[in-house]
């Protein structure tokens, strides 16, 4: 048995029986974990309001040898995420960010950089950064941290600079210039390449000043989606639900 304590971001909360909840959370040192919060469904539970999606908490838990689930023993709220969970877009975005992290973070492995990425993304969303900009920044960096994002460098075929546009080829494995890309593959316009270059050097709060258009953000989303699908060999459920829900609303 091992008692642990860390700052954590809540990734998912699901009911377990009549009284308990299973909580998925992300920490720097222990990575992505799941634990049982006993009594969290009860009417007078202190955990109930604190275990909100993407809220930052001071979490204590007990790890037991051979058990898949830890036991959550204490939760203290450090930063609620209520500020952007009050809209449909905010809730869907939060679910998408959380599922993305769970898809790319193996359970139990340290995730310092991924934790910082999610933390700063939530911070920016709470500070009023548009969900579109914040989510695209998060997607690009998530894929970079996973080592699967083909970052724009000179065309690997002919060596030409990609500033004039590029194509995603190899099912999402590399970016080549338009001339070398042929007819297939996702087109990456110059504005999207500018976004990728800016994301590589700027923190998220400074990205808003770069004035990216909705078209540029949409192109980055298409690029990130293609790379993610190729890597995971499937689409994230929350991404599909988000698209269907916002289309219907």
């Amino acid at each position: 048995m091992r008692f642990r304590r860390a700052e954590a971001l809540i990734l998912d909360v699901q009911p377990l029986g009549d009284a308990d909840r299973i909580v998925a959370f992300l920490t720097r040192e222990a990575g992505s974990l799941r634990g049982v919060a006993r009594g969290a469904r009860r009417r007078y539970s202190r955990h109930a309001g604190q275990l909100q999606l993407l809220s930052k908490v001071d979490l204590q838990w007990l790890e037991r040898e051979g058990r898949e689930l830890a036991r959550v023993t204490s939760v203290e709220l450090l930063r609620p995420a209520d500020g952007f969970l009050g809209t449909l877009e905010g809730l869907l975005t939060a679910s998408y960010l959380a599922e993305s992290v769970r898809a790319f973070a193996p359970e139990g492995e340290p995730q310092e950089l991924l934790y910082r990425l999610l933390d700063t993304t939530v911070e920016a969303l709470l500070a009023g950064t548009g969900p579109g900009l914040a989510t695209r920044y998060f997607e690009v960096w998530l894929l970079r941290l996973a080592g699967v994002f083909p970052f724009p460098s000179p065309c690997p075929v002919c060596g030409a600079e990609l500033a004039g546009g590029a194509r995603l080829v190899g099912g999402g494995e590399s970016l080549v210039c338009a001339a070398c890309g042929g007819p297939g593959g996702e087109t990456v316009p110059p504005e999207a390449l500018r976004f990728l270059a800016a994301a590589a050097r700027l923190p998220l709060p400074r990205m808003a000043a770069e004035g990216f258009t909705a078209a540029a953000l949409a192109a980055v989303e298409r690029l990130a989606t293609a790379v993610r699908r190729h890597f995971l060999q499937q689409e994230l459920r929350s991404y599909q639900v988000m698209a269907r829900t916002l289309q219907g609303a």
Partner: protein
Amino acid sequence: MSDPLSRLVGELARLPGIGPKTAGRLAHHLLRVPEAQARELAAAIVEVKEKLFHCSRCNAITAVDPCRFCADEGRDRTRICVVEEPFNIQPIERTGEFRGLYHVLLGALSPQRGIGPDELAIPQLLARLDGVEEVVLATNPNVEGEATALYLARLLRPRVAHVTRLAFGMPVGGDIEFTDEVTLARSLAGRREL
């Protein structure tokens, strides 16, 4: 373990909230009870499967169609209370505060589990809005329930005069000292003048 017992444990373990250990305990308990009691349990399970179904109007669990809520002419037909599951109706009924009709969505939006609007009984709700003045959104105060309420509010506002949501706040009989910050913040946001 003998085969019939394994089968019973396996079947019980398929029920929500019951793991293999609890299933084993329940199975051994059933072995000890009188045969008549075990038969009563089995008959009750078969009976609900044979006789109960979802109301064709509101999706409540019923043995007759329409259900007793939809058939009751004394209920206020200008108000519909939307809940996630059929078992959410009874707690609201017990309050005695709501005398309108119900609509059961048979779930809630759950992005991480891939449940979107198409999986819910939303078209049936939209088809019931003639003469309705208020829709009360009584989905759970969690991510899934909130997303569902916000989605429905967008669809309903152009069609219904009043779209309301159950209030959030401290439980009656609770203590401020032991109330979590999020609940307390929502209680403050939803405070009312006395």
